[in-house]
Protein backbone atom coordinates (compact mmCIF):
# COMPACT_ATOMS: atom_id res chain seq x y z
CA UNK A 1 0.00 0.00 0.00
CA UNK A 2 2.90 2.32 0.71
CA UNK A 3 3.84 2.27 -2.98
CA UNK A 4 0.33 3.45 -3.92
CA UNK A 5 0.40 6.24 -1.35
CA UNK A 6 3.85 7.28 -2.52
CA UNK A 7 2.65 7.34 -6.13
CA UNK A 8 -0.25 9.62 -5.18
CA UNK A 9 2.08 11.94 -3.29
CA UNK A 10 4.30 12.30 -6.35
CA UNK A 11 1.20 12.82 -8.50
CA UNK A 12 0.21 15.71 -6.24
CA UNK A 13 3.51 17.42 -7.03
CA UNK A 14 2.77 17.43 -10.72
CA UNK A 15 2.16 20.89 -12.05
CA UNK A 16 3.03 22.35 -8.69
CA UNK A 17 4.68 25.71 -9.06
CA UNK A 18 6.32 25.28 -5.68
CA UNK A 19 8.61 22.62 -7.15
CA UNK A 20 10.03 25.08 -9.66
CA UNK A 21 10.02 27.96 -7.20
CA UNK A 22 12.17 26.01 -4.74
CA UNK A 23 14.60 25.05 -7.50
CA UNK A 24 14.81 28.65 -8.66
CA UNK A 25 15.33 29.91 -5.10
CA UNK A 26 18.12 27.49 -4.30
CA UNK A 27 19.74 27.98 -7.73
CA UNK A 28 20.12 31.67 -7.03
CA UNK A 29 22.54 30.79 -4.20
CA UNK A 30 25.43 29.50 -6.33
CA UNK A 31 24.88 32.41 -8.72
CA UNK A 32 25.24 34.84 -5.83
CA UNK A 33 28.35 33.08 -4.55
CA UNK A 34 29.83 33.01 -8.05
CA UNK A 35 29.10 36.71 -8.42
CA UNK A 36 30.92 37.45 -5.15
CA UNK A 37 33.90 35.41 -6.36
CA UNK A 38 33.96 37.36 -9.58
CA UNK A 39 33.75 40.69 -7.72
CA UNK A 40 36.66 39.66 -5.49
CA UNK A 41 38.72 38.63 -8.49
CA UNK A 42 37.76 41.56 -10.71
CA UNK A 43 37.18 44.49 -8.33
CA UNK A 44 37.91 47.11 -10.97
CA UNK A 45 35.42 45.76 -13.50
CA UNK A 46 32.88 45.16 -10.74
CA UNK A 47 33.20 48.76 -9.57
CA UNK A 48 32.67 50.00 -13.13
CA UNK A 49 29.48 47.97 -13.28
CA UNK A 50 28.32 49.50 -9.99
CA UNK A 51 28.64 46.26 -8.02
CA UNK A 52 29.80 46.28 -4.40
CA UNK A 53 33.40 45.38 -5.15
CA UNK A 54 34.82 47.35 -2.27
CA UNK A 55 32.67 45.64 0.31
CA UNK A 56 33.45 42.22 -1.14
CA UNK A 57 37.16 42.95 -1.00
CA UNK A 58 36.90 44.01 2.63
CA UNK A 59 35.15 40.82 3.60
CA UNK A 60 38.40 38.91 3.37
CA UNK A 61 37.13 36.54 0.71
CA UNK A 62 39.45 34.95 -1.76
CA UNK A 63 38.30 33.86 -5.19
CA UNK A 64 39.35 30.22 -4.92
CA UNK A 65 37.68 26.83 -5.07
CA UNK A 66 38.13 26.21 -1.30
CA UNK A 67 36.40 29.52 -0.45
CA UNK A 68 33.74 28.84 -3.06
CA UNK A 69 33.01 25.37 -1.66
CA UNK A 70 32.94 26.69 1.89
CA UNK A 71 30.23 29.18 0.98
CA UNK A 72 28.37 26.52 -0.96
CA UNK A 73 28.23 24.26 2.10
CA UNK A 74 26.83 27.17 4.13
CA UNK A 75 24.24 27.80 1.43
CA UNK A 76 23.05 24.20 1.45
CA UNK A 77 23.20 23.99 5.25
CA UNK A 78 21.66 27.28 6.42
CA UNK A 79 19.70 28.35 3.33
CA UNK A 80 18.71 24.75 2.81
CA UNK A 81 17.23 24.44 6.29
CA UNK A 82 14.89 27.31 5.55
CA UNK A 83 14.04 26.21 2.01
CA UNK A 84 13.49 22.63 3.13
CA UNK A 85 11.17 23.88 5.85
CA UNK A 86 9.25 25.72 3.13
CA UNK A 87 9.05 22.55 1.01
CA UNK A 88 7.83 20.43 3.93
CA UNK A 89 5.39 23.13 5.04
CA UNK A 90 3.94 22.99 1.54
CA UNK A 91 3.75 19.20 1.30
CA UNK A 92 2.02 18.81 4.66
CA UNK A 93 0.28 22.17 5.04
CA UNK A 94 -1.40 22.11 1.62
CA UNK A 95 -3.73 19.33 2.76
CA UNK A 96 -5.19 21.72 5.32
CA UNK A 97 -4.98 24.93 3.32
CA UNK A 98 -6.67 23.26 0.33
CA UNK A 99 -9.12 21.42 2.58
CA UNK A 100 -8.12 17.98 1.33
CA UNK A 101 -6.88 16.44 4.59
CA UNK A 102 -10.34 15.07 5.35
CA UNK A 103 -10.27 13.21 2.02
CA UNK A 104 -7.26 11.20 3.19
CA UNK A 105 -8.38 10.17 6.64
CA UNK A 106 -11.28 7.77 6.08
CA UNK A 107 -9.64 5.41 3.63
CA UNK A 108 -8.51 1.79 3.72
CA UNK A 109 -4.96 3.09 4.16
CA UNK A 110 -3.13 3.46 7.46
CA UNK A 111 -2.69 7.15 8.16
CA UNK A 112 0.97 6.69 9.02
CA UNK A 113 1.66 5.84 5.39
CA UNK A 114 0.67 9.36 4.37
CA UNK A 115 3.14 10.88 6.84
CA UNK A 116 5.92 8.57 5.74
CA UNK A 117 5.18 9.01 2.02
CA UNK A 118 5.23 12.79 2.36
CA UNK A 119 8.56 12.63 4.17
CA UNK A 120 9.95 10.40 1.41
CA UNK A 121 8.69 12.86 -1.22
CA UNK A 122 10.39 15.69 0.70
CA UNK A 123 13.62 13.67 0.84
CA UNK A 124 13.55 12.94 -2.90
CA UNK A 125 12.70 16.54 -3.72
CA UNK A 126 15.43 17.84 -1.41
CA UNK A 127 18.03 15.44 -2.83
CA UNK A 128 17.15 16.51 -6.37
CA UNK A 129 17.46 20.19 -5.40
CA UNK A 130 20.83 19.69 -3.72
CA UNK A 131 22.20 17.65 -6.63
CA UNK A 132 21.00 20.26 -9.11
CA UNK A 133 22.67 23.00 -7.09
CA UNK A 134 25.92 21.03 -6.86
CA UNK A 135 25.98 20.54 -10.63
CA UNK A 136 25.23 24.22 -11.11
CA UNK A 137 27.97 25.17 -8.65
CA UNK A 138 30.60 23.09 -10.41
CA UNK A 139 29.59 24.56 -13.74
CA UNK A 140 29.77 28.13 -12.42
CA UNK A 141 33.09 27.52 -10.62
CA UNK A 142 34.56 26.06 -13.80
CA UNK A 143 33.26 28.97 -15.86
CA UNK A 144 34.95 31.39 -13.45
CA UNK A 145 38.19 29.38 -13.72
CA UNK A 146 38.75 29.56 -9.99
CA UNK A 147 42.21 28.43 -8.82
CA UNK A 148 43.25 25.69 -6.34
CA UNK A 149 40.92 22.95 -7.60
CA UNK A 150 41.64 19.34 -6.76
CA UNK A 151 39.63 16.15 -6.98
CA UNK A 152 40.07 15.58 -3.26
CA UNK A 153 38.78 19.07 -2.49
CA UNK A 154 35.76 18.51 -4.75
CA UNK A 155 34.92 15.16 -3.17
CA UNK A 156 35.22 16.71 0.29
CA UNK A 157 32.97 19.62 -0.71
CA UNK A 158 30.30 17.33 -2.12
CA UNK A 159 30.47 15.17 0.99
CA UNK A 160 30.13 18.18 3.30
CA UNK A 161 27.23 19.62 1.29
CA UNK A 162 25.40 16.29 1.26
CA UNK A 163 25.98 15.77 4.97
CA UNK A 164 24.75 19.31 5.72
CA UNK A 165 21.69 18.61 3.56
CA UNK A 166 21.11 15.31 5.35
CA UNK A 167 21.37 16.86 8.81
CA UNK A 168 19.03 19.68 7.71
CA UNK A 169 16.57 17.02 6.49
CA UNK A 170 16.60 15.23 9.82
CA UNK A 171 15.11 18.33 11.44
CA UNK A 172 12.12 18.68 9.12
CA UNK A 173 9.73 16.11 10.60
CA UNK A 174 9.27 18.59 13.44
CA UNK A 175 8.26 21.16 10.83
CA UNK A 176 5.86 18.62 9.33
CA UNK A 177 4.29 18.07 12.72
CA UNK A 178 3.84 21.82 13.24
CA UNK A 179 2.25 22.07 9.76
CA UNK A 180 -0.33 19.48 10.80
CA UNK A 181 -0.79 20.89 14.26
CA UNK A 182 -1.24 24.41 12.86
CA UNK A 183 -3.16 23.19 9.78
CA UNK A 184 -1.46 25.27 7.13
CA UNK A 185 1.72 26.83 5.80
CA UNK A 186 2.35 29.72 8.12
CA UNK A 187 2.81 27.97 11.49
CA UNK A 188 5.59 25.67 10.21
CA UNK A 189 7.36 28.54 8.47
CA UNK A 190 7.12 30.63 11.62
CA UNK A 191 8.41 27.68 13.62
CA UNK A 192 11.36 27.14 11.25
CA UNK A 193 12.33 30.82 11.36
CA UNK A 194 12.03 30.89 15.15
CA UNK A 195 14.18 27.77 15.47
CA UNK A 196 16.83 29.18 13.12
CA UNK A 197 16.91 32.40 15.12
CA UNK A 198 17.08 30.51 18.40
CA UNK A 199 19.78 28.29 16.93
CA UNK A 200 21.76 31.38 16.07
CA UNK A 201 21.35 32.81 19.56
CA UNK A 202 22.34 29.53 21.22
CA UNK A 203 25.28 29.17 18.88
CA UNK A 204 26.98 31.87 20.92
CA UNK A 205 26.55 29.85 24.09
CA UNK A 206 27.73 26.46 25.22
CA UNK A 207 24.40 24.95 24.19
CA UNK A 208 25.10 24.90 20.47
CA UNK A 209 26.07 21.19 20.28
CA UNK A 210 22.84 20.22 22.04
CA UNK A 211 20.24 22.36 20.30
CA UNK A 212 19.17 20.72 17.00
CA UNK A 213 18.92 23.94 15.00
CA UNK A 214 22.40 25.04 16.12
CA UNK A 215 23.98 21.79 15.05
CA UNK A 216 23.76 22.38 11.27
CA UNK A 217 25.57 25.75 11.49
CA UNK A 218 28.03 24.12 13.87
CA UNK A 219 28.50 21.22 11.52
CA UNK A 220 29.26 23.31 8.46
CA UNK A 221 31.63 25.56 10.37
CA UNK A 222 29.41 28.62 10.21
CA UNK A 223 29.87 28.89 13.95
CA UNK A 224 32.47 27.45 16.27
CA UNK A 225 34.95 24.96 14.89
CA UNK A 226 34.73 23.01 11.62
CA UNK A 227 32.52 20.04 11.00
CA UNK A 228 35.01 17.39 11.95
CA UNK A 229 34.80 18.42 15.58
CA UNK A 230 31.03 18.02 15.96
CA UNK A 231 30.47 15.82 18.99
CA UNK A 232 28.80 12.43 18.46
CA UNK A 233 26.26 13.57 21.05
CA UNK A 234 25.08 16.26 18.61
CA UNK A 235 24.35 13.62 16.00
CA UNK A 236 22.36 11.71 18.61
CA UNK A 237 20.38 14.91 19.32
CA UNK A 238 19.63 15.32 15.60
CA UNK A 239 18.63 11.65 15.26
CA UNK A 240 16.34 11.91 18.28
CA UNK A 241 14.81 15.10 16.87
CA UNK A 242 14.08 13.23 13.64
CA UNK A 243 12.48 10.30 15.43
CA UNK A 244 10.46 12.57 17.71
CA UNK A 245 9.25 14.55 14.68
CA UNK A 246 8.19 11.43 12.79
CA UNK A 247 6.41 10.02 15.85
CA UNK A 248 4.64 13.33 16.55
CA UNK A 249 3.54 13.65 12.91
CA UNK A 250 2.11 10.14 12.82
CA UNK A 251 0.44 10.59 16.21
CA UNK A 252 -1.09 13.88 15.05
CA UNK A 253 -2.55 12.19 11.97
CA UNK A 254 -3.81 9.22 13.93
CA UNK A 255 -5.16 10.76 17.09
CA UNK A 256 -5.97 14.42 16.56
CA UNK A 257 -9.43 15.62 15.61
CA UNK A 258 -9.80 16.75 12.05
CA UNK A 259 -12.63 19.24 12.24
CA UNK A 260 -11.71 20.80 8.91
Amino acid sequence: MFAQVLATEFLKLRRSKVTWFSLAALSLGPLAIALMMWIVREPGRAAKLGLLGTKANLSGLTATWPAYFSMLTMLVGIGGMLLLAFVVAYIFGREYTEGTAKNLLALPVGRHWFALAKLVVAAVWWTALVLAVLVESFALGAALRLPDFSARLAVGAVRDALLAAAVAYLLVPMVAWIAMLGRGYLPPLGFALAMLALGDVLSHTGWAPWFPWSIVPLFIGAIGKPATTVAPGSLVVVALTFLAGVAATIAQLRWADNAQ
Partner: protein
Amino acid sequence: MSAGAAVSTRALSKRYRDTLAVDALDLDVRRGEIYGFLGRNGAGKTTTIRMLLGLIRPTGGQVEVLGARVGPGATAPFARVGYLVETATAYPNLTVRENLEIRRRLTKAPRAAVDEAIDLMRLGELAERRERVLSLGNKQRLSLARALLHRPELLVLDEPTNALDPAGIVEVRELLRSLARERGVTVFVSSHILGEIAHLVDRIGILHEGRLIEELDRDQLRAAERLYVRVGVSEPARAAALLSGAGFAHVEEADGQVRVYGAEGRVPEMARALVGAGLDVTELTSVREDLESHFLRLTGGPE
Protein backbone atom coordinates in the same frame (compact mmCIF):
# COMPACT_ATOMS: atom_id res chain seq x y z
CA MET B 1 -24.84 -2.24 18.60
CA SER B 2 -27.46 -3.30 16.11
CA ALA B 3 -26.31 -6.37 14.21
CA GLY B 4 -26.52 -5.96 10.47
CA ALA B 5 -26.85 -2.20 10.54
CA ALA B 6 -24.81 -0.22 8.05
CA VAL B 7 -24.25 2.51 10.62
CA SER B 8 -24.79 2.08 14.32
CA THR B 9 -24.00 4.44 17.18
CA ARG B 10 -24.57 4.09 20.89
CA ALA B 11 -24.49 6.99 23.34
CA LEU B 12 -22.31 8.84 20.86
CA SER B 13 -21.26 12.23 22.20
CA LYS B 14 -18.90 15.00 21.31
CA ARG B 15 -18.09 17.93 23.51
CA TYR B 16 -16.09 20.99 22.46
CA ARG B 17 -15.15 22.75 25.69
CA ASP B 18 -18.51 24.10 26.96
CA THR B 19 -20.52 23.02 23.92
CA LEU B 20 -22.11 19.61 23.71
CA ALA B 21 -22.24 19.22 19.94
CA VAL B 22 -23.64 15.66 19.93
CA ASP B 23 -25.47 14.29 22.93
CA ALA B 24 -25.81 10.53 23.54
CA LEU B 25 -26.83 9.69 19.99
CA ASP B 26 -28.28 6.24 19.34
CA LEU B 27 -28.62 5.71 15.63
CA ASP B 28 -29.19 2.67 13.44
CA VAL B 29 -29.14 2.92 9.67
CA ARG B 30 -30.32 -0.25 7.98
CA ARG B 31 -28.46 -1.71 5.05
CA GLY B 32 -29.86 -0.65 1.70
CA GLU B 33 -31.95 2.23 2.96
CA ILE B 34 -31.67 5.94 2.31
CA TYR B 35 -31.52 7.66 5.66
CA GLY B 36 -32.01 11.40 5.82
CA PHE B 37 -30.18 13.11 8.66
CA LEU B 38 -31.91 16.39 9.16
CA GLY B 39 -31.12 19.31 11.38
CA ARG B 40 -30.60 23.01 11.38
CA ASN B 41 -27.17 24.54 10.92
CA GLY B 42 -25.23 23.79 14.08
CA ALA B 43 -27.47 20.89 15.12
CA GLY B 44 -24.50 18.50 15.16
CA LYS B 45 -24.93 16.77 11.78
CA THR B 46 -21.42 17.34 10.47
CA THR B 47 -19.87 16.52 13.83
CA THR B 48 -21.78 13.22 13.82
CA ILE B 49 -20.65 12.46 10.28
CA ARG B 50 -17.05 13.22 11.18
CA MET B 51 -17.31 10.75 14.05
CA LEU B 52 -18.82 8.10 11.76
CA LEU B 53 -15.80 8.50 9.50
CA GLY B 54 -13.24 8.59 12.29
CA LEU B 55 -12.21 12.15 11.43
CA ILE B 56 -12.80 13.24 15.00
CA ARG B 57 -12.81 11.25 18.20
CA PRO B 58 -16.02 10.96 20.20
CA THR B 59 -16.01 12.23 23.75
CA GLY B 60 -18.13 9.22 24.61
CA GLY B 61 -20.00 6.32 23.03
CA GLN B 62 -19.28 4.01 20.14
CA VAL B 63 -19.57 3.91 16.37
CA GLU B 64 -19.80 0.92 14.06
CA VAL B 65 -19.76 1.24 10.29
CA LEU B 66 -20.52 -1.85 8.19
CA GLY B 67 -19.94 -4.01 11.22
CA ALA B 68 -16.50 -2.61 12.07
CA ARG B 69 -15.72 -0.45 15.07
CA VAL B 70 -14.56 3.04 14.10
CA GLY B 71 -11.77 4.41 16.24
CA PRO B 72 -8.69 6.56 15.76
CA GLY B 73 -6.89 5.48 12.64
CA ALA B 74 -9.42 2.77 11.79
CA THR B 75 -9.23 1.55 8.21
CA ALA B 76 -11.31 -1.64 8.20
CA PRO B 77 -14.67 -0.37 6.89
CA PHE B 78 -13.48 2.41 4.64
CA ALA B 79 -12.76 0.35 1.54
CA ARG B 80 -16.55 0.05 1.33
CA VAL B 81 -17.47 3.62 2.28
CA GLY B 82 -17.69 6.68 0.04
CA TYR B 83 -18.08 10.06 1.63
CA LEU B 84 -18.38 13.77 1.17
CA VAL B 85 -18.02 15.97 4.22
CA GLU B 86 -19.28 19.53 4.11
CA THR B 87 -17.42 21.48 1.41
CA ALA B 88 -16.23 19.93 -1.82
CA THR B 89 -12.44 19.95 -1.89
CA ALA B 90 -9.78 18.59 -4.24
CA TYR B 91 -6.25 19.40 -5.34
CA PRO B 92 -6.62 22.59 -7.36
CA ASN B 93 -3.50 22.13 -9.47
CA LEU B 94 -4.57 18.68 -10.63
CA THR B 95 -7.13 17.83 -13.27
CA VAL B 96 -10.46 16.18 -12.58
CA ARG B 97 -9.03 12.90 -13.84
CA GLU B 98 -5.88 13.17 -11.72
CA ASN B 99 -7.88 13.95 -8.62
CA LEU B 100 -9.95 10.83 -9.22
CA GLU B 101 -6.85 8.80 -10.00
CA ILE B 102 -5.54 9.59 -6.51
CA ARG B 103 -8.70 8.18 -4.95
CA ARG B 104 -8.61 5.17 -7.27
CA ARG B 105 -5.12 4.24 -6.16
CA LEU B 106 -5.91 4.71 -2.48
CA THR B 107 -9.01 2.51 -2.65
CA LYS B 108 -7.43 -0.04 -5.02
CA ALA B 109 -10.31 0.41 -7.45
CA PRO B 110 -9.83 -0.90 -11.01
CA ARG B 111 -8.45 1.47 -13.64
CA ALA B 112 -11.82 1.74 -15.38
CA ALA B 113 -13.35 3.20 -12.22
CA VAL B 114 -12.10 6.70 -13.01
CA ASP B 115 -13.88 6.83 -16.38
CA GLU B 116 -17.01 5.30 -14.87
CA ALA B 117 -17.12 7.97 -12.16
CA ILE B 118 -16.52 10.70 -14.73
CA ASP B 119 -19.39 9.40 -16.86
CA LEU B 120 -21.68 8.93 -13.87
CA MET B 121 -21.27 12.55 -12.76
CA ARG B 122 -21.22 13.91 -16.33
CA LEU B 123 -17.74 15.34 -15.99
CA GLY B 124 -16.50 14.09 -19.38
CA GLU B 125 -15.89 17.49 -20.93
CA LEU B 126 -14.10 18.68 -17.81
CA ALA B 127 -11.95 15.60 -17.23
CA GLU B 128 -8.70 17.23 -18.31
CA ARG B 129 -9.36 20.57 -16.66
CA ARG B 130 -7.75 21.55 -13.42
CA GLU B 131 -9.97 21.59 -10.39
CA ARG B 132 -9.28 25.25 -9.68
CA VAL B 133 -11.08 26.39 -12.84
CA LEU B 134 -14.27 24.42 -12.14
CA SER B 135 -17.48 26.09 -11.02
CA LEU B 136 -18.70 25.39 -7.49
CA GLY B 137 -21.33 23.02 -8.84
CA ASN B 138 -18.77 21.05 -10.84
CA LYS B 139 -16.46 20.90 -7.84
CA GLN B 140 -19.34 19.32 -5.98
CA ARG B 141 -19.78 16.84 -8.84
CA LEU B 142 -16.11 15.97 -8.64
CA SER B 143 -16.43 15.32 -4.92
CA LEU B 144 -19.43 13.10 -5.53
CA ALA B 145 -17.55 11.26 -8.28
CA ARG B 146 -14.72 10.66 -5.82
CA ALA B 147 -17.16 9.34 -3.23
CA LEU B 148 -18.70 6.93 -5.75
CA LEU B 149 -15.55 5.89 -7.57
CA HIS B 150 -14.83 2.62 -5.75
CA ARG B 151 -18.48 1.46 -5.78
CA PRO B 152 -19.00 1.77 -2.02
CA GLU B 153 -21.63 -0.14 -0.07
CA LEU B 154 -22.26 2.88 2.11
CA LEU B 155 -22.38 6.50 1.04
CA VAL B 156 -22.09 9.16 3.73
CA LEU B 157 -22.97 12.50 2.22
CA ASP B 158 -23.02 15.77 4.11
CA GLU B 159 -25.22 18.29 2.32
CA PRO B 160 -24.39 16.78 -1.11
CA THR B 161 -26.47 19.21 -3.13
CA ASN B 162 -24.68 22.31 -1.86
CA ALA B 163 -23.80 24.62 -4.75
CA LEU B 164 -25.75 22.56 -7.28
CA ASP B 165 -28.34 24.21 -9.48
CA PRO B 166 -31.93 22.89 -9.41
CA ALA B 167 -31.28 20.51 -12.30
CA GLY B 168 -28.19 19.22 -10.54
CA ILE B 169 -30.14 18.69 -7.33
CA VAL B 170 -32.72 16.59 -9.15
CA GLU B 171 -29.95 14.68 -10.90
CA VAL B 172 -28.18 13.85 -7.62
CA ARG B 173 -31.46 12.84 -6.03
CA GLU B 174 -32.17 10.45 -8.92
CA LEU B 175 -28.64 9.11 -8.75
CA LEU B 176 -28.89 8.33 -5.05
CA ARG B 177 -32.25 6.70 -5.56
CA SER B 178 -30.92 4.49 -8.35
CA LEU B 179 -27.79 3.58 -6.36
CA ALA B 180 -29.95 2.42 -3.49
CA ARG B 181 -32.43 0.61 -5.73
CA GLU B 182 -30.10 -0.97 -8.27
CA ARG B 183 -26.89 -1.52 -6.34
CA GLY B 184 -28.27 -1.82 -2.82
CA VAL B 185 -26.09 1.04 -1.64
CA THR B 186 -26.92 2.40 1.80
CA VAL B 187 -27.11 6.18 1.70
CA PHE B 188 -26.73 8.35 4.78
CA VAL B 189 -27.45 11.89 3.65
CA SER B 190 -27.58 15.01 5.76
CA SER B 191 -29.42 18.20 4.99
CA HIS B 192 -30.80 21.23 6.72
CA ILE B 193 -33.62 21.47 4.19
CA LEU B 194 -36.32 18.89 4.76
CA GLY B 195 -37.99 19.46 1.42
CA GLU B 196 -34.76 18.56 -0.32
CA ILE B 197 -34.62 15.02 1.04
CA ALA B 198 -38.15 14.27 2.23
CA HIS B 199 -39.14 12.61 -1.05
CA LEU B 200 -35.88 10.75 -1.41
CA VAL B 201 -35.41 9.02 1.90
CA ASP B 202 -36.83 5.83 3.40
CA ARG B 203 -36.37 7.19 6.90
CA ILE B 204 -35.48 10.44 8.43
CA GLY B 205 -33.84 11.37 11.72
CA ILE B 206 -34.18 14.87 13.07
CA LEU B 207 -31.25 16.15 15.07
CA HIS B 208 -31.65 19.19 17.26
CA GLU B 209 -29.02 20.59 19.60
CA GLY B 210 -27.06 17.36 19.29
CA ARG B 211 -29.96 15.07 20.14
CA LEU B 212 -32.01 12.83 17.90
CA ILE B 213 -35.46 14.16 18.66
CA GLU B 214 -37.52 12.21 16.13
CA GLU B 215 -37.21 9.40 13.61
CA LEU B 216 -39.87 8.92 10.96
CA ASP B 217 -40.30 6.32 8.27
CA ARG B 218 -41.98 7.06 4.98
CA ASP B 219 -45.51 6.42 6.29
CA GLN B 220 -44.90 8.55 9.33
CA LEU B 221 -43.53 11.29 7.14
CA ARG B 222 -46.81 11.33 5.25
CA ALA B 223 -48.75 11.29 8.50
CA ALA B 224 -46.70 14.21 9.74
CA GLU B 225 -48.26 16.30 7.05
CA ARG B 226 -51.16 17.15 9.36
CA LEU B 227 -54.36 19.01 8.56
CA TYR B 228 -55.49 21.94 10.67
CA VAL B 229 -57.98 24.78 10.51
CA ARG B 230 -56.48 28.25 10.48
CA VAL B 231 -58.67 30.73 12.29
CA GLY B 232 -58.38 34.48 11.75
CA VAL B 233 -60.15 36.16 14.63
CA SER B 234 -60.26 39.49 16.47
CA GLU B 235 -59.06 38.17 19.85
CA PRO B 236 -56.86 35.09 19.22
CA ALA B 237 -56.04 34.33 22.86
CA ARG B 238 -59.69 34.46 23.90
CA ALA B 239 -60.70 32.45 20.84
CA ALA B 240 -58.15 29.73 21.62
CA ALA B 241 -59.37 29.45 25.20
CA LEU B 242 -62.97 29.37 24.02
CA LEU B 243 -62.33 26.59 21.47
CA SER B 244 -60.37 24.53 23.97
CA GLY B 245 -63.26 24.88 26.37
CA ALA B 246 -65.69 23.85 23.64
CA GLY B 247 -64.03 20.45 23.21
CA PHE B 248 -61.49 21.09 20.50
CA ALA B 249 -58.60 18.99 21.74
CA HIS B 250 -55.60 20.52 20.03
CA VAL B 251 -55.65 24.30 19.79
CA GLU B 252 -52.55 26.46 19.31
CA GLU B 253 -52.34 30.21 19.29
CA ALA B 254 -49.39 32.00 17.78
CA ASP B 255 -48.57 35.08 15.72
CA GLY B 256 -52.09 36.44 15.85
CA GLN B 257 -53.64 33.23 14.55
CA VAL B 258 -55.29 30.20 16.00
CA ARG B 259 -54.63 26.68 14.68
CA VAL B 260 -57.06 23.92 15.48
CA TYR B 261 -55.79 20.42 14.70
CA GLY B 262 -58.08 17.46 13.98
CA ALA B 263 -61.15 19.64 13.47
CA GLU B 264 -61.59 19.63 9.69
CA GLY B 265 -65.18 18.34 9.92
CA ARG B 266 -66.17 20.76 12.66
CA VAL B 267 -65.66 24.11 10.93
CA PRO B 268 -69.37 25.21 11.16
CA GLU B 269 -69.42 24.33 14.83
CA MET B 270 -66.22 26.32 15.35
CA ALA B 271 -67.69 29.33 13.50
CA ARG B 272 -70.86 29.26 15.58
CA ALA B 273 -68.90 29.13 18.85
CA LEU B 274 -66.70 32.08 17.90
CA VAL B 275 -69.46 34.28 16.48
CA GLY B 276 -71.74 33.38 19.38
CA ALA B 277 -69.05 34.68 21.76
CA GLY B 278 -69.04 38.02 19.93
CA LEU B 279 -65.70 37.57 18.16
CA ASP B 280 -65.06 38.88 14.64
CA VAL B 281 -64.06 35.93 12.44
CA THR B 282 -62.03 36.89 9.35
CA GLU B 283 -60.76 33.47 8.23
CA LEU B 284 -61.54 29.78 8.60
CA THR B 285 -59.31 27.78 6.28
CA SER B 286 -58.33 24.11 6.15
CA VAL B 287 -54.53 23.87 5.75
CA ARG B 288 -52.19 20.91 5.29
CA GLU B 289 -49.09 21.39 7.43
CA ASP B 290 -46.10 20.50 5.27
CA LEU B 291 -43.04 18.66 6.50
CA GLU B 292 -41.04 21.82 6.64
CA SER B 293 -43.49 23.31 9.13
CA HIS B 294 -43.38 20.07 11.09
CA PHE B 295 -39.59 20.26 11.19
CA LEU B 296 -39.62 23.91 12.21
CA ARG B 297 -42.15 23.21 14.93
CA LEU B 298 -39.98 20.42 16.30
CA THR B 299 -36.85 22.48 16.24
CA GLY B 300 -38.27 25.65 17.69
CA GLY B 301 -39.75 27.72 14.91
CA PRO B 302 -38.20 29.74 12.09
CA GLU B 303 -34.62 30.93 12.54
